C-alpha cells in the first residue's frame, strides 16, 4: 500500500474500477439498483479509507470484497441474492461489453437528460451524490432524488440492461454522446471560481469518450467527440490568465498549447473521417477546433475552411447558435458588414443568449458604431451569469 494519495489519483482509480465493478455486479445479480447500491457503498468506504491507508495494490479486488461483504450483510433477508453473492469471486467472468451495457442503460432515452447525466456519473464514473451536486451547483438532495427515481424507473418500467442492436445502435450512441458532450461543456464553460470542481467533469467526459471509443470503434462520431474534447483540452493552459480571467482565442499565447496533443487528436479525427466517410456534428466541430489549433498565429487561421465546415455543420444540425458561430467565421472571410447582416435574422431567437450580444458588439465596434456596440455589450453583461465572461465584458466596457 502507498500512503498520501492525492484527490486526483483517487478519482482516477475510483472511476476506473467503480464502473467495471458496477458493470459486473449488475450483470451477475441482474438487478441494477441493488448492484449500484453495493458499488456506491464500496466507493464511499474507499474514499474514506484510501486517503489515510493508501490505495491498495488491487483496488478492483478491494472494492469487490467490500461490495460483496456489504451485500451479504444487507441481503441477509433476501435469500435470492444471498446465494448468488456467496458464489461471486473477483475478477468476475470477463465480459468486455458489460461497461458498455451499463452506459447504454444509464443513458436510456426513457430517462430524463438530467437523470442520464447523474446516473452515468454515479454508476459509470463512481462519483458520489455530493460530488455530482457540487459539479452542477444543485442541492445534493436533488441529485439523490434524480438517481433514486431513475433507478426505480429502470426496474419498474423494464428498461433493459442491454447493448441496443442493429439499426437502433447509432441512435442510442447519439444519446450517450449527448450526455458526454453536456458533461464536457458543463466543465469546460465553467468559470475559474468553479474550476476546481468542474475540471473533474471535463476529465470524466474525456474518460467516458475514450472508453466509448474503445468499445464502439465503428462509430466515427465517437472518435469525433473524443477528438473535440482533446483538442479543447490541449489548449486549456492558455484559456485563463494569471488572474484567472478568460483569454480570447485571438489573444491566447499559442506557445502554451500542447502541440503533441493537438497532433494526436487531429490524427484521430482524420482516421475516423477517412475510415468511415460518415461526417457528423461532432467530427465537424472537432474539425473546426482543429483548424484553429493548427494555425500558428491567429492571423494564419484558415477561415475559409472553417466557413465550409460551418456550412456542413448547419446542413447536418441546424441551430441558431451554430449560425452565430458561422457569422464569426464569415466576418473574417467577407468582413463585418456581412457578418452583421447574418446576425440580423437571429436577434429574436438568440435575444437571451449573451454571446449573441457580445458578438454583435464586436462587429459594431469594428464598424465604428460605438454607441450601439456599447449597448450590445451591456445587454450581454446583463444576461451572463458566468463570472469569467462577466469580467471580460466589464473590461471591454471599461475601454470605451
Amino acid at each position, binding site marked *: 500500500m502507498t500512503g498520501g494519495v492525492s484527490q486526483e489519483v483517487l478519482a482516477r482509480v475510483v472511476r476506473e474500477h467503480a464502473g467495471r465493478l458496477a458493470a459486473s455486479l449488475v450483470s451477475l445479480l441482474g438487478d441494477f439498483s441493488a448492484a449500484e447500491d453495493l458499488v456506491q457503498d464500496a466507493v464511499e468506504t474507499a474514499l474514506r479509507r484510501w486517503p489515510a491507508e493508501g490505495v491498495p495494490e488491487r483496488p478492483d479486488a478491494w472494492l469487490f470484497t467490500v461490495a460483496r461483504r456489504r451485500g451479504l450483510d444487507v441481503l441477509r433477508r433476501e435469500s435470492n441474492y444471498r446465494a448468488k453473492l456467496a458464489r461471486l469471486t473477483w475478477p468476475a467472468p470477463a465480459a468486455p461489453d458489460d461497461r458498455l451495457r451499463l452506459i447504454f442503460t444509464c443513458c436510456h432515452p426513457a430517462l430524463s437528460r438530467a437523470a442520464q447525466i447523474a446516473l452515468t456519473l454515479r454508476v459509470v464514473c463512481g462519483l458520489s451524490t455530493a460530488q455530482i451536486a457540487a459539479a452542477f451547483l444543485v442541492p445534493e438532495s436533488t441529485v439523490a432524488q434524480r438517481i433514486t427515481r431513475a433507478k426505480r424507473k429502470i426496474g419498474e418500467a423494464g428498461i*433493459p440492461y442491454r447493448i441496443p442492436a442493429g439499426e437502433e445502435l447509432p441512435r442510442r450512441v447519439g444519446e450517450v454522446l449527448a450526455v458526454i458532450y453536456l458533461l464536457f461543456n458543463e466543465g469546460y464553460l465553467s468559470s475559474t471560481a468553479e474550476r476546481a470542481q468542474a475540471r473533474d467533469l471535463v476529465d470524466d467526459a474525456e474518460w467516458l469518450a475514450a472508453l466509448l471509443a474503445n468499445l464502439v470503434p465503428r462509430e466515427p462520431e465517437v472518435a469525433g467527440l473524443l477528438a473535440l474534447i482533446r483538442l479543447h483540452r490541449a489548449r486549456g493552459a492558455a484559456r485563463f490568465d494569471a488572474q484567472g480571467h478568460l483569454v480570447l482565442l485571438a489573444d491566447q499565447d499559442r506557445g502554451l498549447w500542447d502541440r503533441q496533443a493537438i497532433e494526436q487528436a487531429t490524427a484521430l479525427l482524420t482516421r475516423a473521417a477517412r475510415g468511415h466517410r460518415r461526417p457528423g456534428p461532432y467530427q465537424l466541430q472537432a474539425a473546426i477546433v482543429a483548424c484553429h489549433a493548427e494555425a500558428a498565429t491567429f492571423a494564419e487561421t484558415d477561415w475559409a475552411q472553417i466557413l465550409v465546415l460551418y456550412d456542413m455543420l448547419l446542413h447536418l444540425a441546424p441551430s441558431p447558435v451554430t449560425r452565430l458561430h458561422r457569422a464569426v467565421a464569415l466576418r473574417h472571410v467577407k468582413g463585418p458588414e456581412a457578418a452583421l447582416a447574418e446576425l440580423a435574422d437571429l436577434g429574436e431567437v438568440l435575444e437571451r443568449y449573451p454571446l449573441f450580444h457580445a458578438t454583435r458588439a464586436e462587429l459594431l465596434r469594428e464598424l465604428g458604431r460605438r454607441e450601439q456596440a456599447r449597448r450590445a455589450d451591456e445587454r450581454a453583461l446583463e444576461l451572463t451569469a458566468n463570472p469569467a465572461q462577466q469580467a471580460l465584458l466589464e473590461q471591454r466596457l471599461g475601454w470605451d
Partner: protein
Amino acid sequence: MKYVLMFVETEEFAAQLEAMGELEQQAAYAAVGQWFADHAGQITHHTHLAPVHTATTVRLDQGEPVVTDGPFVEGKEVVSGFAEVEVADLDEALRIARSWPACPVVEIRPVA
C-alpha cells in the same frame, strides 16, 4: 412484461383526419389495421374510445359526487384508445410504439 400503449390525439391531428379525402382516410385506417396485424403476436388487448365529446367525469373529492360533461382534464391532447402488449422490456414496447401510424403521441406505461 405487460405495457399499455395509450394513443393520444391532438386537435390538430383530428382536424387533419377530418380534412382528408375519402381515399386518404381509408389509407390511414388501413395503416392502423396493418399495424395491429403486424403486432398481433404482442397485442393482448386493445380498445378504441369514442370521441371525447362523449366523456363524462365524476369528481368524488368534493363531498357530494359531482358529475360534469367532458374529460377530467380539458386539454388539447386526449387519449383516444389503448392497446395492451406483452413484450420482454421497454425497448420492445418502444419499437412497437415507434411504428404506430396514426395519432401523434403514444404514452407507454407498464402494467403494475
